[in-house]
């Protein structure tokens, strides 16, 4: 689950909840769905606290390839 994205997990959580609410699962499957849902909820919650933002400039080279460069706002501008 480590490589999973927040929105994938959120979507799965939603699916699991809908399945569970649909009431058509066997008891066994309901319990499995519940366990899975709790995992996703915990994952989403953890992801919300992560700060992974990157802001970069995409610059085109003369040969048409791209390079990325870290971007920082200069506060005296704008």
């Amino acid at each position, binding site marked *: 689950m480590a490589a999973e*994205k*927040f*929105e994938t997990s*959120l979507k799965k*959580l*939603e699916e*699991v*909840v809908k399945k*569970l*609410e649909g*009431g058509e*699962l066997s*008891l066994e499957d*309901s*319990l499995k*769905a*519940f*366990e899975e*849902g*709790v995992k996703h*909820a*915990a994952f*989403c*919650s953890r*992801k*919300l606290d*992560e*700060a*992974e*933002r*990157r*802001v*970069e*400039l*995409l*610059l*085109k080279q003369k040969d048409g390839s*791209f390079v*990325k460069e870290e*971007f920082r*706002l200069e506060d005296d*501008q*704008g």
Partner: protein
Amino acid sequence: MELFAEKRILTVSQLTSLIRGVLEENFEHVWVEGETSNLSMPVSGHLYFTLKDAGAQLRCVMFRASARALRFKPSDGMGLIVRGRLSVYEQRGEYQLIVEYMEPLGVGALQMAFIQLKERLAGEGLFDESHKKPIPQLPQRIGIVTSVTGAAIHDMLNVLNRRFANVEILITPVKVQGEGAAEEIAAAIRDFNRYKEIDVMIVGRGGGSLEDLWAFNEEVVVRAIYNSRIPVISAVGHEVDFTIADFVADLRAPTPSAAAELVVKSKTELAAEVEALSHRLVQGIRHRLAGVDARLFSLLRSLREPSMLLGHLGQRVDDLLGRLDLAMQNGMSRRKERLAFLLNNLRLTNPALLVERGRDMLASLSARGEKGVRRIVERCHETAAVDSARLHALSPLLTLARGYSIVRKLPEMKVIKESSRIERGDRLELTFHSGSALCIVEEKKQAGS
């Protein structure tokens, strides 16, 4: 005037030249308004037309250099305000206005250009809803086409900093006004499409005059947006500013900040969403278990056995639910913490454990249920055995009344119908219509002997 003092004869050319001099000197810089007619633009690129009102007409020409700079296209019937100088076209003896600048009457030239381009592109279907691409819900990589020195990038990054952090932002720096701006913006949009690895792009700039925003009304930008395979959000100027880029974009944001808000959900909104789903998750399992609960209770009741064990499971889920409800009742600001707490609790109480316990309980209960049922069935079997023995004994009553007896061999009480089944010394029971007797076989005779 001196000219007429004596009878001085002038040639037509001389006179015309004199008239031209007078006109050019006195009408060097005039503004005229009127209605356009007889408009033509031959291959030379000069623009010829007549301005008229109810009482008069004025021949006009706009030379190619000036005509090329026009952003809108004049047409017959259009009201125009023009600026120019009067001159005489000597070969034809006509005076005419040499127009250097013109704008449509009532609206400015840029506005007219805007209206005309918009109409033309609308006619081509560039703004059709069917062509618009959906904006992804939670994009991971966001491209921004704007100036890195303007207010817009500040506003957007400020908003993004307050919101969901788990995104990557790529900026292609461009000029957003002045010569070449439109081409740079269009190229940046194409570059993002070539680079591919973004989910959505914001194209825009901060507020400014109509002229400042003009690049976003240029056809090259509009077409680049239309041809983009990556969804485009336009974010130009303030809420009241509309550019043609806004019409062709997949989504128009009223301002750059608003675009950032549209594209990145707020942490609190997302936290609330996760929380709501967690709530439904627990409700869902509780509902499901409640059904099982009820069935087991009724099973237990029928078996007349204590039901203490089962209550435990329901209680745990109730407890969990109570905590969730409590979390829901608290204000938004604390929702996030509540959720974390709640989830931690969920983890601590270990739903897997809860589930495991439920499973064990179910297994043991069903085993016990089965045992109980088996016992009942066994008891029934016994009763049935006794009853059938009794029935066997009773059914021949009428026969016995007629004087027949039933012979059964001890100890298995097997009914004897042939002498071959008995031996000398066997103990037999004789059942009469009334009463019975115990006998011992003294002699056995074969059938027919």
